[in-house]
């Protein structure tokens, strides 16, 4: 069995935004499950981190929430990406790609490449 890792600090917010962007409105549990699924069950989302992150994103205006019915007709709080959240997602995605690219170059650099 594979060892699950916790989500790195600061990356969970981005994952939440992306999940909501792709899958539309979701409740907290759904978000947690989806993130775990998308990561190929390599990640374990700690609820103790997830809900504060959801609240923080909501306070920033990146997401909104409202009560709705879950798939088996239970009352659940659904989170939805806002326009500001979508912008934030784009900006952070760009930053991540940039960071990843830079880190990537460091990993591939060889001694003879440098003058």
């Amino acid at each position, binding site marked *: 069995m594979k060892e699950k890792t916790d989500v790195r600090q600061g990356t969970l917010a981005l994952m939440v935004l992306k999940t909501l962007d792709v899958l539309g409105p979701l*409740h*907290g*549990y*759904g978000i*947690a*499950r989806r993130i775990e699924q998308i990561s190929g069950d390599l990640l374990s989302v*700690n*609820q*103790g981190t997830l*809900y*504060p992150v959801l*609240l*923080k994103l*909501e*306070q*920033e*205006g990146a997401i909104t929430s409202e009560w709705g019915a*879950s798939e*088996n007709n*239970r*009352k*659940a*709080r659904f989170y939805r990406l806002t326009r500001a959240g979508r912008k*934030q997602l784009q900006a952070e995605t760009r930053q991540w790609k940039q960071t990843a690219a830079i880190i990537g170059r460091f990993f591939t650099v060889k001694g003879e490449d440098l003058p």
Partner: protein
Amino acid sequence: MRALRRFLARLSAPLTRQQQEQRLREEFDEHIALLTEDNIRSGLSPAEARRRAVLKFGSLEAMKEVYRDQRGLPRLDALASDVVFGWRQLKKHRASSVAAIASLALAIGATTAAFRLVDAVLLRILPVAEPERLFFLATTFVDREGVPDYRDDFDYPTFRRYRETVGDRADLMVVGMTARQDVTFGAADETEKVYRQYVSGNLFGVFGFQPHLGWLLTPNDDLTPGAHPVAVLSYDYWTGRFGRDPGVIGKTFHMANDRFEIIGVAPRGFTGTEPGEVTDVFVPAMMNVQAINSPGWSWFRIWVRPKPGVSPEQGRLPLQAAFIHEHREHLKEFHSDTPKQVIEAFLGEKILFLPAAAGASRLQRNTGALCSS
């Protein structure tokens, strides 16, 4: 921008605290319920499914704490609960609350009034002629701890000697300390409190004052101990007590053991010589009968106005010489084993002219508004 929005949201959090609590609880319950269902679907018994769900969810209380910290501003929450607690206590002990609030209100009111008075009076230059050429006498000394200090209260015999010494170089005035005293007006039985100040007869003349009404004290009202039962009211007192009744001249009041006659009202704006103190009634120094011939009974300041063409220093030097002369006489009574430095310090004492343009008071001295020169 994002931080600002978050801050505003957190600021408003306590307002909807109950709703938030409710939402939090429901959301967590929902989460555990869904987790349990998933576990059942994967083949666990309902009880075990729920147990695992709760386990995975983690410590609910610890998480609520994290969540709350993120949600509100913890310190503000604590403050809010303090306020609520305080309010409940106030309601619980109504009588003492009312008393506390009332006394606070009174205290604040009184403090404000006092501050306004002091502020106005302290910063106001005396409305006298040539205020910058007005001084009060002080004598320096070194106290037991070796700290330089000065005293500025004198007895009447000393005043007489100084007046003689200065001669026609300057006018010396007796300026008593303002004190509260009981008086009865006319034939009334009711006692009132007034702020009474003893002054020498030349004070109003030296200040260049004209009476607002009637007459002011003159040197002739200050010649013989106990023989001049006359009084001048301050403008403010005349306004407050008599409604500016011109008929007040000639009325009498009983104070100490004498019946005084009101002879006039001082000019408007003159509230006394001591900042922070307001005088109601000015009476001649000679009416302080018992003090007149008592050496060591210090009860007034000596104010000085050098005569035209005389510099303050020209006025001071003869006084300094007399002062040291008296010290040398006094030195003869010292013990023969008195340490040398004590004698030197004693003979090093000085008599000073301190500026009195804004009046003279202990208040200024305590606040360090004066510096000796």
